[in-house]
């Protein structure tokens, strides 16, 4: 490898790092604003025009804060954990294309690489939990491990369905396949499984069990502060963005535009903008869910994952395989997938409403109670004898 090649790779990495960091900054701002809208607040307004410099202020604050090391912490593990979480989040971006032209290194086995790398962050969370020498952190770390590993299965299975449809693991190719019809229309069930398990992978509401503020006080991150904590934070938002982009690439047609008249630079720019618009729609959905739902309990989460999502994801693959093997038209797959999705939603609703009696609180009129409790010497003196 010549020096120039090394230099190019380095330059690419630096550009990637910078742009992803920028995205994270924007994302924190967007999330705060979006949640504020849901919660009838203003969100940040003070720093810069409409508060747009708030993320910068936040990051400056975090960087200048003291890094605290708990006395009993396992030093090496404790300091390495943020890196172990951040690096996989960053590595995933090596092969994610944002347009046909803009990608660090387009791999033929891109999807395979992404699923492989995405699991690595569990290790970091476990390390953080163990290294902090706090029982809450350990508990959070273990919760994270359990949750991430069990949701990895439906996550990968959903991706597999797409790979089968596209007959490729190359993300650029997958997007190109969706030129006429996006896979979300072909596999609505796949999209549902992918988004749900991705939320669990990210640890976002309603699956934010491993860093639940009200239960395990931030889980693995409980002892971290300052710059190290901000690295976890960075990785989390980076992952959120990654998932949103992946959703767009795999299911929503990526940057493909029915009739794109331009070529070259203009094409790249327009594609990028189109992708980002779609991505922000997915992100908004994620924020919206965060603003709406409470958190599930760990056993409910596991039951949901293993009893519903895993079988569904296998079914998804089976129907895709059947349709592809017999060469049936794609709308058959759409119908099958849609029926399964509706069936799954029905099962969830039936399950919850059958096991739960709704109106357990009744109203008793004070008048009735008063007349019963009212002192009436005749009645009670009879009982007293």
């Amino acid at each position, binding site marked *: 490898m010549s020096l120039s090649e090394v230099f190019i790779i380095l330059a690419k990495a630096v550009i990637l790092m910078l742009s992803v960091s920028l995205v994270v900054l924007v994302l924190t701002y967007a999330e705060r604003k979006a949640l504020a809208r849901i919660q009838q607040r203003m969100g940040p307004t003070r720093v810069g025009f409409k508060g747009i410099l708030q993320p910068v202020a936040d990051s400056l604050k975090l960087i200048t804060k003291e890094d605290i090391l708990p006395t009993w912490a396992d030093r090496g593990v404790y300091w390495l954990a943020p890196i172990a979480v951040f690096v996989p989040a960053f590595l995933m971006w090596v092969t994610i294309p944002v347009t046909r032209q803009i990608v660090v290194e387009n791999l033929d086995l891109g999807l395979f690489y992404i699923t492989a790398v995405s699991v690595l962050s569990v290790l970091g969370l476990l390390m953080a939990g163990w290294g902090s020498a706090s029982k809450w952190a350990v508990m959070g770390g273990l919760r994270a491990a359990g949750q991430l590993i069990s949701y990895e299965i439906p996550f990968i299975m959903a991706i597999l369905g797409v790979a089968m449809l596209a007959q490729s693991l190359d993300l650029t190719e997958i997007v190109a396949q969706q030129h006429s019809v996006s896979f979300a229309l072909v596999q609505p069930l796949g999209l549902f499984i992918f988004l749900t398990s991705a939320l669990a992978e990210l640890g976002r509401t309603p699956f934010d069990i491993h860093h639940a503020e009200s239960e395990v006080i931030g889980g693995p991150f409980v002892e971290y502060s300052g710059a190290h904590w901000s690295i976890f934070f960075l990785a989390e938002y980076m992952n959120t963005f990654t998932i949103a982009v992946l959703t767009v690439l795999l299911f929503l047609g990526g940057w493909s535009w029915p009739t794109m008249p331009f070529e070259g630079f203009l094409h790249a720019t327009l594609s990028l903008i189109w992708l980002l618009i779609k991505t922000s729609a997915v992100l908004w959905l994620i924020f919206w869910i965060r603003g709406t*739902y*409470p958190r599930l309990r760990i056993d409910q989460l596991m039951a949901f994952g293993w009893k519903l999502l895993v079988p569904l994801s296998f079914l998804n693959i089976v129907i895709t395989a059947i349709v592809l093997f017999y060469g049936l038209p794609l709308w058959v797959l759409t119908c099958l997938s849609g029926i399964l999705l509706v069936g799954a939603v029905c099962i*969830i609703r039936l399950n919850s409403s059958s096991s739960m*009696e709704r109106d357990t609180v009744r*109203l008793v*009129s004070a008048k009735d*109670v008063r007349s019963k409790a009212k002192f009436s010497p005749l009645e009670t003196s009879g009982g007293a004898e």
Partner: protein
Amino acid sequence: MQIHETENETDGSIDLMINMGPQHPSTHGVFRLVIWVDGERIIKSEPHIGYLHRGSEKICESEHYSQIVTLFDRMDYVGNLNSELAFCLATEKIMDVCVPERAEYIRVILCELNRVASHMLFYGVYGLDAGAMTPILYAFREREKIQNLFESVTGARMMHNYIRIGGVKENLPRDFQQRLHEVLEHLKRGIEECDALISKNEMFLARTKGVGAISGADAIDFGVTGPALRASGVVEDIRVTDPYSIYDRFDFNIPVGTYGDCWDRFYVRVEEMRESVKIIEQAARDLPEGDISAAVRRIVRPPKGEVFVRTESPRGDLAVFLVSDGTDTPYRVKVRAPSFANLQALEQMLQGAYLADAVLILGSIDLIMGEVDR
């Protein structure tokens, strides 16, 4: 890393002892709960209180009667007016003072508003305990309206010191009726909105239904009172069964639950807000003109005697046992705090629950540590 563990007697596995609080964010103050968990399941729990013990009862013994009202503000710091009322009622009873009608109505209106504000806080914080961020902001929007009204009446947002022995501190502001009307209109809509926001949420139901259930008989045995007792199916509301002030004049409903689980405790409070609004409306309609305070000297010297007054605070049976020896300071003030007794049932409720449920069960008791520790 050091982990303190104890051996599980049944199967020889190791239970992890965790210390929840006093700095845990969802213990609602400085409450410490030591729990032994087997994985995520709670084996045993042990509540520790006293981190906020200020010796209020002892301080009461060295203060004049009229000065004590402000100490009561700081006991139940969310339902201030209700605790003020409890002390004033006790003193009035021992002195045999007749409170003017207008003062009684003002007291009822403010206490019920206070109850709504307290339940609103509970509602919001409970959402937060369950992991939903949004409800608390909706709840605080409503609570803010009530606080503003309080500010216009009492001059303070929380520590009012407004209810005095023999009446209330000041007359109502001139536009009170109109303000109250506006607040009530907001509240009615707000309560419905809050109810729609989370009460029917599938996940919230799944989290709270059947969690931390306690039977009515057990609840009575543990001395649980208020919404927590009513949730267990016991029809008991001191405003109705042992009426104080003028509560026997109003027509309202008592919400009663069935299973005594977290959801019942939650929803009983939501219903109670609606009922409180009804009471306030009736009281505002009948609010008479007249004096706002009986002729009571500033330094009161009640006759010798003992009284025991029970009131229905937002959290339950707030009773004051007052012993007077005829001087200007009480001989002994004992506060029977509802949260204190309700907390005793926690161990029972926590049995077999998950760690995540512990937070919800704790939240559903609606603790106020200021009142527990006094």
